[in-house]
């Protein structure tokens, strides 16, 4: 079982990275190959990733950056 290096505070990860790490942790825990201490550590990490994922989903406000050009208002809106 390859160990996953915690890439950083869950809040600092992108949503995709956080979810991917969370799913890795679930897989590792389910494998039953981990030491108990490792299981607990990963579980804690998993819980904080889970919280970060949910916060990101709940708080997501679309951010739009213009590289070039200026958007005209849509008449339909």
């Amino acid at each position, binding site marked *: 079982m390859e160990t996953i290096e915690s890439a950083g505070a869950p809040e600092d990860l992108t949503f995709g990275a956080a979810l991917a790490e969370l799913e890795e942790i679930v897989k590792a825990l389910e494998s039953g190959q981990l030491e108990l201490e490792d299981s607990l550590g990963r579980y804690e990490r998993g819980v904080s990733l889970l919280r970060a*994922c949910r916060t990101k989903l709940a708080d997501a406000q679309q951010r739009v950056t213009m590289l*070039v050009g200026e*958007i005209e208002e849509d008449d339909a809106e």
Partner: protein
Amino acid sequence: MTEAATTSVGVSEALRRAKSVLETITLTIVGEVSECTTKPGYKAVYFSLSDDTSVLPCLMWRDSYDACGFELRPGMLVEVAGVFTAYAAKGRLQFQVRRLTPAGEGVLRMQVAALARKLEAEGLMSASRKRPLPAFPAKIGLVTSPRGKAVHDVIRTLRRRYPVAELVIAGVQVEGDGAVAALIEGLRLAGAHPGVEVVILARGGGSYEDLMPFNAEQVARAVAQCPVPVVTGIGHEPDDSIADMVADVRASTPTAAAEAAAPSVIEIAARVDAAARLLGKALSHSVTERTHRLRLIAHRPVFRDANCLMSARMQALDSTAESLDRALPAGIARAEQLVLRSAEGLARIAERIAERHQLALDVAARNLAHQGPAFIERADRRWALSSARLDDLSPLAVLGRGFAVCYDHGGGRVLRSAAEVASGDRVRVRLAEGTLGCTVENTYPEV
């Protein structure tokens, strides 16, 4: 024609005859539109087609014109199919148009098809080049016109489906002169923007001609060279543009492209919830499994009765003590005599021995000082060896003590839990000598 020379006819009859001859001439004509009248109230649209030296008045019945799906404008090059006729009231020759198409389009389509074949031969459209889209893009690039519906369709769709992602927009000109360069620059900017994982190339519907920048070779190459996957949403069904063919994923509209580029929040929330459930379950399973193993160990005899660890040694000690007790009384009297006599002798020889040994001791002390460390090291190694042997709980030795090992039917896996087998399963039991083939009658998961 002899009749014409001999008999006079009226004007109407003359024109009727001319008309009947003209109406046998069916043609397809290419020309540039001038002076067109397309007033809604009229039964027909009237326009003229011209080339460098001639002008031909045309008419097209309103319903045919409405069905052709595009609007005539002066200066347009068009292809018309129809028949010559005459308008008797004005004595005028005219061409009655049945079918009208932009003349340029056929040529454009041929050019586009040729380019498509060329790029396909280069492998630019091969399925193996198509890159998978990221599952959860943190940043999504969008190259499209900053005006019109397309940009808003994409923004709206992503806001609804996946507001987690940041949208990075290159709002560029998408039709007319300069659009090709603008699209290439937009793709370059969006594709190279840090963190952008997928680029949407979009535009709303338009005429085939309007779509031409998306058929440009340089734009196709810019799509192919984009460092991240490109999704096209170019609203021009049923035509595929070259950009569509080269793109990693082709969607039919800007909205569909946005849907393809990002997952839906609802799907994701379900995935997060599933992970949450599995996380708790996996940990509790892992703890339960260990608790079970621990309980199995705790119930081994050695932990239930500490005496059994020592019992053999204790018995040996007891029997030694007994022999000692028996031997002592008789021995003591003899020993006393012996000791008394020996004490005298000893005292005598002690001095001599002391002298003799003093010398040997000195030598030995020197040797010891010299060889001591090497000796200790040897002793250490021997100690390590024997303790390793002690630790090495050879399964055979364990079997020799009367334990047995239970394997699964294949004999490859040692069974550690009753839960690993079910009633009726065949198992193998290895004894110190020989193996038994057994069938499980009952399982008792608790020890």
